[in-house]
C-alpha cells in the first residue's frame, strides 16, 4: 500500500473537485486527509491518499486540463512537539514583504510547530492567523519576541492560548 501526497492547482471552475476525485478513485486511490480552497481565485487542493503507485495516480491526473499536479510517495511519520500546547498567533497590518517569513521564524526559534496557517490580503491590510503547537511554558517568551518582530515590521501581533472545545 502506497501513501501519496498530491497537489492540484489551477483556475477554479465548477466540477474541478469532482474531476480530481473521480480520476483518483478510478485508479483505486483512497482519499484520507484533504483540503481545498481558493487562493485569490485559484483552485488549490492538497491531499493524502493511499492505494496506487505514484506513477499510476500521476497518469490519472494527467488527463485533467489546465491544472498543475504533483504526486509524491510519502512515509506516514510526522513531526510533532512533545507535550505541545495549542496557541493561536494573529498578525495584521499594512502589507509588506517578509511578514510571514519574519513571524514564522520567531515561532520556529521558540520550538513552535505551525499546524495550520492562513493569510489574506484585503486591500492594503495583510492578515495572518497561525495555529501553533508550543513546548510547555514557552508562551510568555514567544509573546515578547513576537512583539519585537511586530514592532520592526510595523504590524500588530497577538499570541493567545487556543481554547479546547471538547465535549
Amino acid at each position, binding site marked *: 500500500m502506497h501513501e501519496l501526497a498530491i497537489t492540484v492547482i489551477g483556475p477554479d471552475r465548477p466540477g474541478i473537485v469532482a474531476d480530481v476525485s473521480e480520476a483518483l478513485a478510478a485508479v483505486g486511490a483512497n482519499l484520507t486527509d484533504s483540503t481545498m480552497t481558493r487562493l485569490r481565485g485559484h483552485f488549490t487542493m492538497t491531499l493524502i491518499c493511499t492505494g496506487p503507485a505514484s506513477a499510476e495516480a500521476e497518469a490519472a491526473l494527467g488527463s485533467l486540463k489546465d491544472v498543475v499536479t504533483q504526486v509524491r510517495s510519502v512515509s506516514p511519520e510526522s513531526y510533532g512537539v512533545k507535550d505541545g500546547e495549542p496557541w*493561536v498567533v*494573529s498578525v*495584521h*497590518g*499594512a502589507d509588506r514583504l517578509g511578514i510571514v517569513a519574519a513571524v514564522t521564524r520567531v515561532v520556529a526559534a521558540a520550538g513552535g510547530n505551525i499546524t*495550520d*496557517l*492562513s493569510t*489574506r490580503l*484585503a*486591500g*492594503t*491590510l*495583510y*492578515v495572518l*492567523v*497561525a*495555529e501553533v503547537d508550543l513546548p510547555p511554558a514557552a508562551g510568555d517568551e514567544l509573546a515578547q519576541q513576537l512583539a519585537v518582530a511586530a514592532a520592526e515590521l510595523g*504590524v*500588530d501581533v*497577538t499570541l*493567545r492560548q*487556543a*481554547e479546547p472545545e471538547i465535549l
Partner: protein
Amino acid sequence: MIAWAGPDGRVLPVVTAPAPVLGAVGDEVDPTSPEVVRLAADLVATMRVSPGCVGLAAPQVGVGAQVFCVDVTGHPKASTVHGAFVLCNAKVIEASRWKAGREGCMSVPDLTGDVKRAGRVVVSAMLPGSGEPVTVTTDAFEARALQHEIDHCDGKLFLDRVAGAHAIYQRKVYL
C-alpha cells in the same frame, strides 16, 4: 437610564485597518469635558448613518480615546437592549457564558471572523456629560457588541481574537 440624550453630532469618516490608531491603546478620558461630549455625539451620528452598524469606537474615527457608542435595537440576535448609549473608560468586570459568533467591523470591511465572546457581561464605565459612573449588565448580542467596542478602545480588532487559521472569511457584501 444610560440612553444617549446629548446634542446632535457630525458624521465622521471611518478609518480602516491598517490605520495605526486602530492598534493603539486609547487614552482614558474626562467624560465631562466638552470635547468628549462632542466626540460622543459624533460617534452616535456616524453610527446612525452607517447601515448595519451596531457600535462605533473613537479609534474608528481616528481618535485614540476610550469612548464608544452601541445601539443593537431591533437586532434579531439581541436579547437585553439598552438602546443607543455612549460609554467612557469602560471595563469588563464580569464575563461568562462564552460562545463563538461571527463578527465584522466597519474598520475591516472585507473580512469577518469567528470570535468567542462572553454571552453575559457586567461593564463599569462613565457616562459622557455627567461623568456619572454606571454599571451595565447585559447579554447576547449587546454583550458581544460591548466587548468588540471595548477591544477597539484597547487597540484590538476582532482579528486579534479569531478562533483559528480557518476562522476568517472574505466578506461578500457589507450591509
